[in-house]
């Protein structure tokens, strides 16, 4: 058990250090920060204008729907950041295995006393850590924006939303890792992972716009729907189990596909 943990740690460290040594990773992070910063500002501006509009209406005596500005703001920000992440995640996951296959380093990993599981888990932890680093500034922006709100926003709400964002990312990255393990072309891996993300969207749309047995069943599987739940502060064991299932599924499929590679390599 100790050696397994040591192996996972070794892979994790290598993976993480390679992100910090890679110009691509910096470019992705920079673009992500630029766009997310702009979206944050735009959302904040929108919310402020909406609040001013409601204030004006209330002073004129018109009926105003109850509105919790801080929570509405958190929901909106995490909504757009979640969508933005879906575009960035395939780029993060595309190289996880495809790159190793292309460079021949998979041959090193496959002939070292490591299980496929520990390699996959180490890699996933590495890329999720990188994503956390990427999403951290948004948490800081929110904390600053909401610092002087009265009554104060519970930090737990904010943290829960971000935990949801990380779980969503981990699930997508895990499946992206599996896709990456199927090919030695990073471009192909990215394209197929984008297709997967689009499929997740379609699932979410079906779940939202249709009713009935099938739509409900699909709705239960929708990552985005469960993400929205967490962002709204609803902690449901079902959501957590669903995220965990997606993550484990991705890791399991990856380990299997790498094992299968040994047999089909011909």
């Amino acid at each position: 058990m100790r050696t397994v943990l040591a192996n996972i740690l070794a892979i994790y460290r290598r993976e993480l250090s390679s992100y910090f040594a890679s110009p691509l990773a910096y470019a992705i992070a920079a673009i992500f920060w630029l766009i997310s910063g702009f979206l944050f500002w735009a959302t904040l501006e929108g919310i402020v204008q909406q609040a001013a509009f409601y204030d004006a209406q209330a002073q004129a005596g018109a009926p105003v729907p109850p509105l919790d500005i801080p929570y509405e703001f958190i929901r909106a920000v995490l909504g757009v950041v979640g969508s933005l992440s879906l575009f960035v995640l395939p780029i993060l996951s595309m190289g996880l295995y495809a790159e190793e296959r292309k460079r021949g380093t998979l041959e090193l990993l496959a002939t070292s006393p490591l299980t496929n599981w520990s390699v996959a888990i180490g890699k996933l932890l590495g890329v999720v850590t990188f994503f956390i680093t990427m999403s951290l500034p948004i948490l800081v922006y929110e904390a600053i924006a909401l610092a002087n709100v009265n009554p104060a926003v519970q930090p737990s709400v904010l943290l829960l939303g971000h935990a949801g964002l990380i779980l969503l990312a981990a699930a997508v990255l895990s499946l992206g890792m599996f896709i990456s393990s199927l090919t030695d072309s990073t471009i192909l891996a990215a394209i197929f992972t984008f297709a997967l993300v689009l499929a997740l969207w379609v699932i979410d749309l079906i779940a939202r716009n249709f009713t009935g047995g099938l739509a409900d069943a699909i709705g239960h599987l929708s990552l985005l729907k469960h993400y929205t739940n967490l962002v709204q502060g609803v902690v449901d064991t079902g959501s957590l189990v669903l995220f965990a299932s997606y993550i484990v599924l991705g890791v399991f499929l990856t380990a299997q596909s790498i094992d299968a590679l040994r047999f089909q390599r011909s």
Partner: protein
Amino acid sequence: MIEVEHLSKIYGSTPAIEDVTFSVAPGEILGFLGPNGAGKTTTMRILSGYLPASQGTAKVAGFEVHEHSMQVRQRIGYLPETPPLYPEMTVEGFLNFVAQIKGVSAGDRASRITLALQKCNLLEKRKTLIRKLSKGFRQRVGIAQAIVHDPPVIILDEPTVGLDPRQIIDVRNLIKQLANDHTVILSTHILPEVSMTCDRIAIINRGRVVATNTPESLMEQLVGGSGYELEIAGNSLAIQQCLKRVKGVKYVEEMRIENMPEHRIKVRVVAESNTEPGHAIAVALVQNGVKLYEMRRVQASLEDVFLELTTEEKPVDPTESETVETEIPASASANVNSEETAPSSTPSQIPESTEDAE
């Protein structure tokens, strides 16, 4: 230490290797020699557990490579055909990672890495990014990663590819050093490499092992040791009789060569092993009044063995006859043996090595 029995690997319908059987004793260096595409890499990959075999068994240190993959992986150091390197890491960082995943304990790691760097002459490059290294250095980092965890069995697939002559000598010496307490199996298509470094050679061609032996006995067995080539004038039979009586001569044969000057013949005298009858031959010829025009010592080389074993058996082999022809001085007329056109089985002079065959 390594036992391979009846190993076969079939890709689709074409066999990459067929019925390969050999074994390597502890502390021994086995050279796996063969032309490109003969199945060397496939065999290495099966031994390392990277590829499953279609048939047969391969055992490393008593463990079947596929069934007990983990035990085998703990005991081998493996340099694949292309060195598996992470370009964004430093040499030291990479070796540290490899030592970690190979299970070297944290306490030993630093000293093991320094030792591997030392052995591969990489100390001054320890902080350099692998991306910035030349091909030769990368190859050496590849070797360093195979030995960093001090495995009992080391598998090297073409370890000297891309190195300059000086580095090749270093790597060969390194491999020899390793053999003291490791078992080494290396593949190559470079002949001098095996004759210089290996205790035993397995020659593989078209997926089959065609010979396994020590370099010396292979040469002995297949080409018949060293000998002399004589160009003389006179009665062929009488001369042969006379030469056969000389002590140390195993047998004499006339070489059928076209375009010899009139009345001249070339004979090949094959010596018993570990004898040098050169002087005695000269004395015998002089005493019998035979006119001697040329006398040359011919050392059978591994190249001959290799060519003999790996060249297809055709009545007239274009490449071989070419080699023979270039040796003959383009002298005039007189076809001594017009009915014979097949190339002689000369232990020919070493053709310009097969190193640049790729």
